[in-house]
């Protein structure tokens, strides 16, 4: 009998399942609950590592069938090119899933960009607004996201099934109690729940799971020579010709990788030699830096995240 097959050798007492197995089972349970209890669920797919893990868990949850839940990508038009290519090639072609791409065309026409608008206003126009619009337009009643409670202090109190009112607002004082693994999935027409299957995962759990399961990811997470400019503490990769350089800035080639992915002009890279997933995990264990420091978006104010959440942004 193959030990790895059964999870234990024959005749030994059942050990507690290793933490990754426990987290995986919990997330699969949540995903199936969404499929069973909602009419029209969607997976918010950002192409980053967390949504890649979610996609992998979706495949597991509904195996041997195809996941019955479509993907929604809110495309800010400022993504790294590699991300959109990955989305098309992997999610759409290789897995054959339904991928809905939503762009705020008004914002694009008005030339809204991260350089002139400040990260808050820009995010509002190119991410938050089109997200709310898409949820309303398609009538989604559940939106699965990759949010984790360890990411940011205000998320520590987030539910796994998080209730939003019709304006997609989150009221921290009006959340349903959540006990055991029995989720209150009731809602009225027009109401939508946000669902976070990775709530109990930490950044390290995510990476170790990616390593263990060989989860496909964009290469941006691995260290490669890339053209960068230094701005304050941030290293910004010049991903296309739209990048605005200030006087005297010259992109130089440095070996960098990303810890989170977003819009390239506001997503800082880190200098690193970690060229494989294993090395990334190793590096993560060795350097203890908060993962979101690469995002200018969080540093505007101490509690920006909570305010964004109330407004409907993840």
């Amino acid at each position: 009998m193959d030990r790895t097959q059964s999870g234990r050798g024959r005749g030994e007492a059942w050990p507690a399942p290793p933490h990754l197995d426990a987290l995986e089972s919990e997330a699969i349970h949540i995903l199936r609950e969404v499929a069973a209890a909602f009419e029209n669920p969607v997976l918010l797919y950002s192409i980053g590592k967390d949504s890649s893990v979610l996609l992998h868990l979706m495949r597991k949850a509904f195996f041997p069938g195809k996941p019955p839940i479509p993907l929604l990508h809110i495309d800010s038009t400022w993504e790294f090119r590699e991300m959109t290519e990955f989305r098309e090639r992997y999610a759409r072609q290789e897995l054959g899933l339904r991928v809905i791409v939503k762009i705020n065309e008004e914002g694009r026409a008005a030339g809204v960009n991260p350089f002139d608008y400040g990260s808050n206003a820009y995010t509002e126009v190119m991410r938050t607004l089109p997200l709310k619009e898409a949820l309303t337009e398609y009538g989604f009643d559940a939106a699965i996201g990759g949010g984790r409670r360890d990411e940011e202090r205000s998320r520590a109190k987030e539910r796994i099934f998080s209730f939003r009112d019709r304006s997609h607002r989150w009221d921290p004082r009006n959340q349903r109690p959540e006990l055991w693994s029995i989720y209150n999935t009731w809602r009225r027409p027009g109401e939508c729940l946000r669902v976070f299957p990775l709530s109990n995962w930490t950044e390290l759990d995510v990476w170790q799971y990616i390593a263990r399961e060989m989860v496909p990811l964009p290469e941006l997470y691995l260290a490669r020579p890339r053209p960068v400019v230094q701005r304050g503490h941030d290293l910004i990769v010049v991903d296309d010709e739209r990048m605005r350089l200030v006087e005297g800035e010259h992109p130089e080639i440095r070996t960098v990788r990303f810890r989170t992915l977003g819009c390239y002009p506001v997503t800082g890279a880190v200098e690193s030699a970690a060229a494989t997933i294993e090395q990334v995990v190793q590096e993560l264990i060795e350097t203890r830096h908060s993962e979101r420091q690469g995002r200018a978006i969080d540093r505007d104010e101490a509690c920006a995240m909570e305010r964004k959440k109330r407004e409907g942004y993840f």
Partner: protein
Amino acid sequence: MTSLTTPATRQDLTVKPCEKDLLRFITCGSVDDGKSTLIGRLMLDAGAVYSDQLVALQSESRKHGTNGGEIDTALLLDGLEDEQQQGITIDVAYRYFATQKRKFIIADTPGHEQFTRNMATGASNADLAILLVDATKGVLTQTKRHAFIVSLLGIKHVILAVNKMDLVDYDEAAFESICQDFKRFAAKLEITDLRLVPLSARHGDNVAEPSAKMLWYADGSLLHQLESVYVGSDQNLRDFRFPVQWVNRPDETFRGFSGTIASGVIRAGEEIVVLPSGKRSRVRSIVTMDGPLEEAASSKSCTLTLEDEIDVTRGDMICRPGNRPHVSRHAEAMLVWMSEQTLKFDRPVWFKNSAGRAVGEVESLRYEVDVNSLHRKQSQTLGLNSIGRCALSFHEPIAYDAYARNRETGAFILVDRITHETLAAGMFLEHDVSGESGEGLADFQRARVIQSHVALERRSQRHGHEPFTVLLTGLPASGKTTVAKQLEQRLFELGAIGVLVDGESMRQGLSKGLGFSIEERSENLLRGAEVARLLNDAGQFCIASFCAPEEATRQKFLEIVGRHRVFHVHLDASVAACRARDTTGRYAAAENGQIKGFPGVDFHYQSPLSADLTIDTQEQIDVNELAGCVIAPFHRGDAASPDRSKVVPDRDAIIPE
């Protein structure tokens, strides 16, 4: 240019250990007890705080800290803006940290009176609870309330953390008196594992490292205990329960039933029954994306396919024909009321449990529990944060177990049909066949221990010997029964009073209906242990003859009967030798697959680590000689005039082989 990034191989994963186990615990106490300081301290000392967070913490501590400019670990925790201003926490917050050994999930709950509902929420998924007490204040009403809710929600492991020991000069007597106080109260609750830890969260004494200021305390730091507490046995591995969550029908060729195993173990090929319909089938396969599994256990999310095309839908429960939950339209349960609107009787509400949903009503309130005194009181209704025992009825039959037996299938929520708010969390009580209010069944008092008026010494005097148990273990056909019968006869001739309890015979009566799966074998042995204990308590000897293939269960046997009373004799022979002399045909049947989980064939036999006596029965057994071997330690008197007082196992008399 893009590429799919996947690791080339998994073998070169340098990060070890990648796999830890997971402990979920809840912290109860109030801000005044130093709860946030303790959690922050645990995370800080366990190395779970990133360097940039630490920098931020230092500057915040200087600005807002309450620790005289020193690091104030409480500041690591507060999340919501308004709370930061108010300095209180109003909801369950989840925190994460990991050490080399374990990953921890903390449910951090507020300690104020009006937040019973949050505590119940945090406790519902926890394996362990830390109850925080201020050493200068001792055990308060609030502490008792928390302990009661923790016990109601089925948490078996409790750590009483006596904080602020620095304010009582790290005095052992102060700590002891608080412990005694709490123990007296905790005796009323179902806490099976209580640990008591003195500490100072503010200074980090005994949080992650033992403290030089409390050398009188030797049980290790709080973190050490969190890392080492064994919660594996809390899982229910006896009762297989599989609530069907989702029917998986991607096309005409495949029909599977997906869900998470709530408890127990299932193997491909085993017979199952689907409730409430009662239709039977067999498990054809256990499907996962990583390939089919031979067997799967509690908490695994998987998909089952069945041999027969029977109708199964979301909300059904798959289990074994010989071990079923209750299926009924009526039940009794404890409710924790969570809504501002009070409980209304006979009004339809949504019911949801691990399997699915139904409509039901709360019919009546038997009593409310005063969480401060634990007394029952008559009450007209339940309001926010009150707890009471209710009778419920459902519009269709519900499959459930008592919560005390099964946390997964014994739990449910009630949801308002109009507002959709969660009204209550519920925990089923043991099914009440009488239809009476079942006083006693749901008692919070532990079942009473009935003390006999006849002292054990007097029984021993009458029988002329001390009570003892001989546990005979070994593979099937290793000679256990033969030896046991001989031994019984000889002990009887020596004048000893007692009886042989054989694992196989148990299945005729006391263990009727138990199968041969791992957990059912364990159950049979544990029932044997209870019988041995009864016999010993009556002053008699017991010869317990069991295959007992698993060391963990053998250890439990010793615990139940009492190690000092058990004399463990292991009959050691190879599988081949046992198989050669087997006259019952069991080995042959096992090899043909007619018997599953047969020790020595498709089930590994773990040899005992510490038997009192191991006898080689590899060769042909001479029964007389063998019984002589076994009896030797028991009887060194003169055979002509047996001295019954000598009939006790004497470990020193064993000649080392």
